[in-house]
């Protein structure tokens, strides 16, 4: 379940964001974004120009200064809104543990302390009704825990000491029993705290691609700064005195303010989208890397298949009626609480309308499964003229021994059926009544609905899926074919998983995997993107660089899409921003020269009203486009897996060609507006 994304302009977020936009004008913060820093310096210089400039130009310079400040504020606002949304998301999660009082164990005694004061290694007690104060491992006891606060899943989950289900998350509630938990996080170092830090500007680390892009933008800014500075002497040569505010207007329009202003908002919004899907990422780098992944290692169980084998068919022995087999199989499974057993009862009911019966314990003796006998079943004593029955179901070998001991024979057709089922990747379960073999039940791993389509989707994204399973090669191949994965690893050990990841990486692939057990930790750490399940062990969660609170392995696909979206949004807005320069050039440069060289008029291809209106229109467009693109930056450019070339063509057309054309239209409209409003 995903939490609902708050509407784009929720007043609760917009209000503080407006305040933050001003607070972010602090030069120490601004310097981190070279493009906007230069813009701010330009705005400040233009403001000075109001006082030093000619009286006739003051109105114009004042308006320029206002719009330049707006450009900076709009960019700050974009970042503040993105942060606000992220914080709101995290805050709702944090609320859960805000007022929690922990029952800390010190020298065998309980003391009550506020949750935020807990330190790593502390032991705390939680009983039914208590909220777990912080992330930790269950040391003692077993309890059912309601994790709905974090995962949105209403069904309680079992958490117990030892094994793979020992990890608990702060903010969840114990529903029954008593557990002792050892806190595993540093003060303030919980996943939530980390996530909150990630969406807050101050501690946000730039991702590698963001750094590269920042360099590109800073270099472009420097080049355009030089272009505008050298225009002054070129102007002196040409007997044209370019005023400082006009040169600043040209500079701000040419430097990539659109992407420069929205860059950090895009990154924050990406993290926010990850959080909305109930995934906690340890760094923005991890989310970005997810977009690059081209090999996905997926555990079969729980990801590709439903996780349990299910009975799918009854294959009776010769001369046995299928109903008879179903009836016997159902009887033998009545007391069998395993998912396989239950699925047999259900199949018999579905196919032959055989109702599950209450069989009084006095009338029947259930034989549980043991590792020695490798079969289970039920014995009925002779009663009411019915002969005694002893029904068994189990592995072919075990049943064969059983019927042969009872003096029966194992029919050839049944052997054939057993073999066929094995070859198709299923598990045969032979059912016998005394010395008579009744037939075979076909147990099968059931592939999740829709998973094949998801893999096809991944393939279009350029991602290869590898299924990992402990099954033998035969079974694995059958399931791999049914699920449509590209490759599989049968009888995989943790060492082999690690080895496989290293091999893929050595041949230039980026690997993502999901895991939950302690033995997955090395592989999770080695993988470029390791998504640990929230139900997994603490070791696994520490090793991965993301934790999925829903423990849904297919979530990885969503994360990959978010990672790609982040990059696409940055690339598209960069293209758009640079392409915009063409129109701004045609708006401003002729306007700057009109006074000295009236012959330049034909270059004013937009037929803008006057030089001042042309310059102002370009600056206003430049500021407004930032506001206009905030929704896109926060939502991200839509990603559809249509192949890289098609994606490129589509985005080049929209953001490249669009980026050339849109400002021509926009600047013209603004020019008409400000002229008719007599602003200039």
């Amino acid at each position, binding site marked *: 379940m995903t939490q609902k994304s708050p509407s784009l302009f929720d007043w609760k977020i917009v209000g503080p964001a407006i305040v933050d936009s001003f607070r972010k004008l602090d030069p120490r913060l601004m310097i981190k974004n070279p493009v906007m820093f230069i813009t701010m310096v330009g705005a400040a210089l233009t403001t000075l120009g109001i006082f030093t400039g000619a009286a006739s130009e003051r109105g114009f310079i004042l308006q320029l200064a206002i719009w330049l400040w707006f450009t900076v504020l709009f960019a700050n606002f974009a970042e503040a809104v993105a942060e606000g949304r992220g914080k709101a998301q995290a805050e709702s999660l944090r609320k859960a543990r805000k007022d929690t009082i922990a029952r800390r164990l010190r020298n065998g005694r309980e003391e009550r302390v506020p949750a935020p004061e807990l330190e790593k290694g502390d032991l705390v007690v939680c009983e039914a009704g208590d909220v777990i104060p912080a992330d930790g491992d269950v040391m003692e006891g077993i309890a059912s825990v309601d994790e709905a606060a974090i995962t949105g899943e209403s069904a309680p989950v079992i958490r117990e000491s030892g094994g793979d289900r020992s990890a608990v998350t702060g903010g969840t509630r114990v529903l029954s029993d008593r557990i002792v938990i050892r806190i595993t996080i540093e003060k303030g170092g919980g996943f939530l705290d980390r996530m909150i830090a990630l969406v807050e500007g101050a501690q946000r680390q730039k991702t590698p691609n963001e750094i590269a892009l920042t360099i590109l933008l800073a*270099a472009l800014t420097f080049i355009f700064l030089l272009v505008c500075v050298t225009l002054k002497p070129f102007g002196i*040569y040409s007997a044209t005195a370019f005023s400082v505010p006009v040169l600043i207007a040209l500079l701000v329009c040419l430097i990539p303010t659109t992407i420069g202003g929205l860059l950090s908002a895009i990154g924050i919004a990406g993290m926010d989208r990850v959080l909305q899907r109930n995934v906690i990422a340890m760094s923005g780098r991890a989310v970005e890397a997810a977009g690059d992944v081209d090999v996905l290692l997926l555990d079969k169980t729980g990801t590709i298949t439903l996780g349990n084998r299910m009975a799918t068919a009854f294959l009776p022995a010769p001369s046995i009626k299928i109903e008879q087999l179903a009836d016997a199989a159902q009887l033998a499974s009545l007391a069998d609480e395993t998912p396989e057993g239950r699925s047999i009862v259900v199949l018999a009911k579905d196919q032959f309308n055989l109702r599950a019966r209450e069989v009084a314990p006095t009338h029947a003796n259930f034989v549980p499964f043991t590792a020695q006998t490798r079969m289970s079943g039920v014995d009925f004593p002779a009663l009411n003229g019915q002969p005694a029955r002893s029904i068994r179901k189990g592995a072919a070998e075990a049943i064969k021994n059983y019927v042969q001991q009872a003096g029966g024979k194992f029919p050839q057709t049944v052997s054939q059926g057993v073999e066929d089922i094995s070859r198709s990747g299923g598990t045969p379960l032979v059912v016998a009544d005394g010395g008579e073999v009744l037939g075979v039940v076909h147990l099968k791993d059931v592939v999740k609905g829709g998973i094949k389509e998801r893999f096809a989707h991944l393939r279009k994204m*350029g991602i290869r899926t590898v299924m990992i399973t402990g099954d033998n090669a035969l079974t694995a191949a059958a399931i791999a074919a049914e699920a449509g994965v590209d490759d599989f690893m049968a009888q995989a050990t943790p060492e082999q998983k690690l080895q496989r990841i290293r091999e893929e990486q050595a041949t230039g692939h980026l690997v993502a995997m999901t895991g939950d057990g302690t033995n997955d930790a090395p592989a999770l750490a080695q993988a470029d993107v390791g998504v640990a399940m929230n139900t997994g062990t603490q070791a696994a969660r520490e090793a991965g660089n993301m934790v999925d609170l829903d423990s849904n392995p297919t979530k990885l696909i969503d994360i990959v899409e978010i990672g790609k979206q982040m990059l*696409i949004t940055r*690339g598209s807005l960069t293209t758009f921003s640079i392409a915009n320069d063409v129109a701004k050039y045609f708006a401003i440069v002729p306007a700057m020269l009109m006074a000295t060289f009236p012959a330049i008029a034909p270059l004013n291809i937009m037929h803008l009203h006057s030089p001042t209106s042309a310059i102002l229109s370009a600056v206003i467009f430049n500021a407004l486009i930032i506001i206009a693109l905030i929704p896109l930056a926060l939502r991200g450019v839509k990603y559809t897996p249509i192949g890289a070339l098609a994606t490129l063509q589509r*985005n080049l057309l929209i953001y490249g060609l669009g980026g050339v054309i849109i400002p021509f239209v926009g600047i013209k409209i603004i020019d008409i507006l400000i002229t008719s409003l007599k602003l200039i």
Partner: protein
Amino acid sequence: MHSYDWFQLGLYVALLALITKPMGLFLGRVLDANGRTWFDPVLKPLERITYRVMGVKPNVEQDWKQYTLAMLMFSLVSCVFTYAILRLQHWLPLNPQHFGPTTPDLAFNTSTSFTTNTNWQSYTGESTMSYLSQMVALVIHNFGSAATGIALAAALVRGIARHSAATLGNFWVDLVRITYYLLLPICLVFALALVSQGMIQNFKPYTTAKLLEPFTTQVQKTDDKGQPVTTNVAVTVQAPKLDANGQPVLANGAPVMLDVPKLDEKGQPVMTNMPVMIDQKIDTQTIPQGPMASQVAIKMLGTNGGGYTNANAAHPFENPTPLSNFLQILSIFAIGSGLTYYLGRMTKNQAHGWSVWSAMMILFLAGALVCWWAEAAGNPIHHQLGVAAAGGNMEGKEVRFGIFNSALFATITTDASCGAVNSMHDSFTALGGFVPLFNIQLGEIIIGGVGAGLYGMLVFVVLAVFIAGLMVGRTPEYLGKKIESYDVKMAMLALLVLAVSILGFAAWASVSKWGLDALNNSGPHGLSEILYAYSSANGNNGSAFAGLSANTPWLNTTIGLAMLIGRFLMIVPIMAMAGSLGRKKVSQASAGTFPVSGGTFVVLLLGTILLVGALNFLPALTLGPIVEHFQNHQGTLY
């Protein structure tokens, strides 16, 4: 724009396409230290001896720092060597005209000019340089700087093609092999072909010929000691003509101007010394001789462009026939074009090589057509006055070549950082002159200087791949190499150097006395001349817009610095990028990787070049050729 001109343009592109593959294949052999060529029996022993004398271990490769350092050392030593010869030429042999030593600033300018493959010439070759200076001091650079450019391009291509490699080849091996196996053999054949067209190749002293039609010109009068004789005259200024009422007299709305004596504060006329001019009858002409064909072959093939004579390829000896003209422009592009094939072959993606080539060809054709069209359309003022020549603008062009071949030559020589000229770019129409200037400012990447064109273009390829790669949702990859912040930084640094140096120097010159004094034209045209000079120097082109008297200490020095910056400050970041790319692992291509070939890629690359590379210069260009173009149409000339 005649049909046979179109035919020649088509033939040119077709022939270029045809030689690209064999040239690329041959480059592959030359640039492989163990590659075999037809010349092995003769040249292999020579190659071995060279290594022994130089103390080079041909099988030891260098990392990017060693490679770059070797290149810088070679350039420095050869530059100092040339400087020394130019300064000492009067004491050295092969100086039949007894030319004196060149001035320090000219020697600096010239030696850096030839070291950087620019071949900007502030001097008149036939009246300044001895045969030794021409043949040794300058020609070694024609080979050395060309081979250096090709070697650097090869090192970058190796960086792109190799997988987790620390080294990029051996500079000395590349230098020797390119010179011996590529440049020398082709030049030998090419020079013979040029001689067959009537180009001279001798060591005779200059010939003095009697003129059939003697003429008279004005020269400065000198006294017995050879000092110019001057006289004191009144300075005049222009003032509006006033009528009896003291109102300006208007003609067609503009005030009529008169020359009036300039007066100082006391009302006294201001006087100045002016040289005294006397008539001189010219009845003889000195015709330069010399080893021209061998010089011209390497000047074209190595995109050096430094002319033997001041008139360069417009001189009848340096470019005698239409065929020699065609061969020369073909040879300018030959190696650069072949290098794109080499890129494709080395990276095992031939389509990529051809895509880069196509992008270059599109820019070339666009420039050539605009320039040709502008020149064929002629001067708008002539049209307004009804005196337009039928063929278009023939000013500054050889009648032998006409408009098309002059425009084509101008486009090619500026596309390729060659800088040889067969017409005066200064006399082109505003738009026609805009094309060569724009070509240079793009960074000499349209085929470009040998090697330099490819590595300059690859900077744009890396940037295009970076921006587009983001747009498809992956960390950008260029042929499997991830483009990361370090690579972007180096690529942008290379672009930055270009912009800083061109705009910085030009802005400085345009407001300083030394810059303005050198100008022969005022207004936008003068600005074009300044922009052109520094663009040409930075782009290591070497052609001149003329109209700028560049042989002054200030200009020689600043232009010399611009050439050094444009060459070496650009190369270092590019080589750092080559080293970084070489060390990277190759990622596997998947459906998520966009192809670096095909139409979309070409469009993307062109867009990047125009938006990231060209936009920087547009505001300055607007004040130069663009405004001049519009002014011309309004009837103003400069």
